[in-house]
């Protein structure tokens, strides 16, 4: 019987997971997700796709807000930039979708340097407001440059064809999203256990102490911004292609709030939390709709007329309740459940 969890080398300490069971379950989850398009109807599949795309974006914000502790209220700006960086070359100039996806990551990453530069001097609230300002400026610029972006009319984007595979159907597109989301998750997990990731967390926990230990604050904050914007931009491009239409109205300010809600509900600073939070927040409006339909036809009618408002109310209430009663989020609850399972009937 195992009496404890002993680590004898650094490699063992930073390995992604030392438990074979976790690997097996993760593999089963990936297989299930890969099989999902063939098992689920198209309505349920749309939620799977949304979860995968939102998860990619949430992981991007997680690198910045969760790991590095820099609050961003303007993440929708990066999503928007990514969507346009994909749509403009692909739909307007006929570039290859691969180039488009690359640009969808690189353009927001470059733009994030512009936002990141003031962040070197700003902290907390001031930074949050700068990012907020940035997202408004971005959508304004996109609307103004109508010779490039078609302004308020938006751009229609076809689903891509990559390596000879046509991703036009929802089933194929779900596979593309799964690939991107899994790659992002791996990238984020690996960044977090590298030197760079440890520096991010040091900056989050105490930036003055981190600086004293030789962490270059400027460089690492900018890197966090760039990595975060890169992943979010790709999520934005996927979202645009999923809807087959990219416009400024498709990326409302509420998306920034939604992204923060995901991190808070999941548990700030935890990668697992970002994933669980995504599932929770994406399914929340649907769960609300089902709960209201149980209350009767009148309540369901309210949902169809005020769907957007009720969704916002749900996000807001969930944010407030989680911060009030479970600041560690769903990831914290999950940890408690695991500990209870292992140690029961002992408490520790």
């Amino acid at each position, binding site marked *: 019987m195992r009496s404890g969890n002993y680590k004898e080398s650094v490699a063992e300490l930073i390995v992604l997971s030392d438990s074979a069971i976790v690997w097996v379950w993760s593999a089963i989850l990936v297989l299930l997700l890969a099989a999902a398009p063939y098992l689920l109807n198209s309505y349920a599949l749309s939620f799977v796709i949304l979860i995968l795309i939102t998860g990619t974006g949430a992981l991007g914000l997680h690198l910045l807000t969760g790991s590095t502790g820099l609050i961003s209220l303007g993440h929708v700006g990066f999503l928007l930039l990514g969507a346009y960086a994909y749509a403009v070359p692909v739909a307007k100039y006929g570039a290859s979708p691969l180039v488009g996806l690359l640009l969808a990551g690189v353009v927001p990453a470059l733009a994030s340097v512009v936002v990141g530069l003031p962040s070197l001097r700003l902290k907390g609230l001031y930074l949050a407001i700068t990012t907020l*300002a940035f997202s408004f400026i971005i959508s304004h610029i996109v609307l103004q440059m109508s010779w490039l972006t078609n302004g308020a009319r938006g751009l229609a984007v076809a689903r891509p064809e990559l390596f000879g595979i046509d991703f036009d159907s929802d089933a194929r597109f779900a596979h593309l999203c799964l690939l991107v989301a899994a790659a992002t998750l791996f990238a984020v997990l690996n960044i977090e256990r590298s030197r760079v990731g440890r520096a991010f967390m040091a900056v989050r926990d105490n930036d003055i102490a981190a600086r004293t230990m030789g962490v270059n604050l400027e460089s690492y904050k900018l890197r966090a911004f760039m990595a975060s914007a890169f992943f979010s931009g790709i999520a934005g491009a996927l979202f645009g292609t999923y809807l087959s239409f990219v416009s400024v109205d498709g990326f409302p300010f509420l998306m920034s709030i939604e992204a923060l809600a995901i991190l808070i509900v999941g548990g700030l600073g935890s990668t697992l939390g970002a994933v669980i939070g995504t599932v929770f927040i994406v399914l929340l409006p649907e769960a609300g709709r089902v709960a209201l339909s149980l209350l009767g036809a009148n309540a369901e009618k309210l949902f169809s007329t005020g769907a957007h408002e009720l969704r916002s109310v749900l996000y807001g209430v969930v944010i407030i309740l989680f911060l009030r009663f479970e600041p560690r989020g769903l990831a914290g609850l999950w940890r408690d459940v695991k500990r209870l399972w292992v140690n029961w009937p002992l408490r520790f």
Partner: protein
Amino acid sequence: MQYFLDQVISGIAIGAIYGLVAMGFAVIYKSTGLANFAQGEMTMLIAYVAWSIAGAAPGGPWLVAGGALAAAVLLGLAIERLIMRPMLGEPVFATVMVTIGLSVVLRSVILLIWDPYPHALDIGVGRDIVHVGGTGMRSGQLAVIAALLAALGAFWGFFRYSRVGKAMRAVASDDRTAQLMGINAARIHAVAWVASSVIAGVAGVFFALLYDVSPNMFHLGLKAFPASILGGLDSVLGAGFGGILMGIAENLAGGYLAPSAKEIAGFVIIIAVLMVRPFGLFGERDIERV
């Protein structure tokens, strides 16, 4: 030159409203140390209540003013008691996120209760034209500038001389030490929320008088943010003047560059200001000790 003057004067009038909302931010920041992202929504909610009162009981301006004032006091007390007080002692990030959650909830609840169309708040005052230095102004615009100046003066005196105002500053700087000195921090927070909510209400009713009540009114909060940042989040007086500067800058950008530049002029300005002075124009420099 006349065009320039017109732009500046109407900029001062709208800037006075921004200034009032920004003062609301600053009062809360100064006494509780957190930024209230729901300020614009509180402004909007009270304006809607005033509009409903004016529609239900056409009893003239005093009834509307009294009703809006009562609503503002109740709103401030309710938010503090039900939502913010349980968060006392939590990290700043958590409390700020709670206000963001609150703003989303308030905005949507307003849309669910009232309709999404703009309405004029017409209570028979504030619409007549007064001539000032060759340009016509509505009396409501003059009144809002007077209200801003009065509020600025009142808060300056309050923070400097009154016992409660000094207690507020003490709580903001370190609530634990302030409590050890016998200050009831929870009560101070309640006073701050009520004061901020009342200023928000004044701004909201004036905005509704001069323009209209609409679901887009929460943009006032987004416009007032740059104003309070410009003045420094912890400076109530700076916030008021920041609002006026912001109103003028916005109108000049809209008048001389492009009409759409009006919307983002404020945001461009704060990014520029924060690059040079990361603690605002009038804010106190934060010295960190390890």
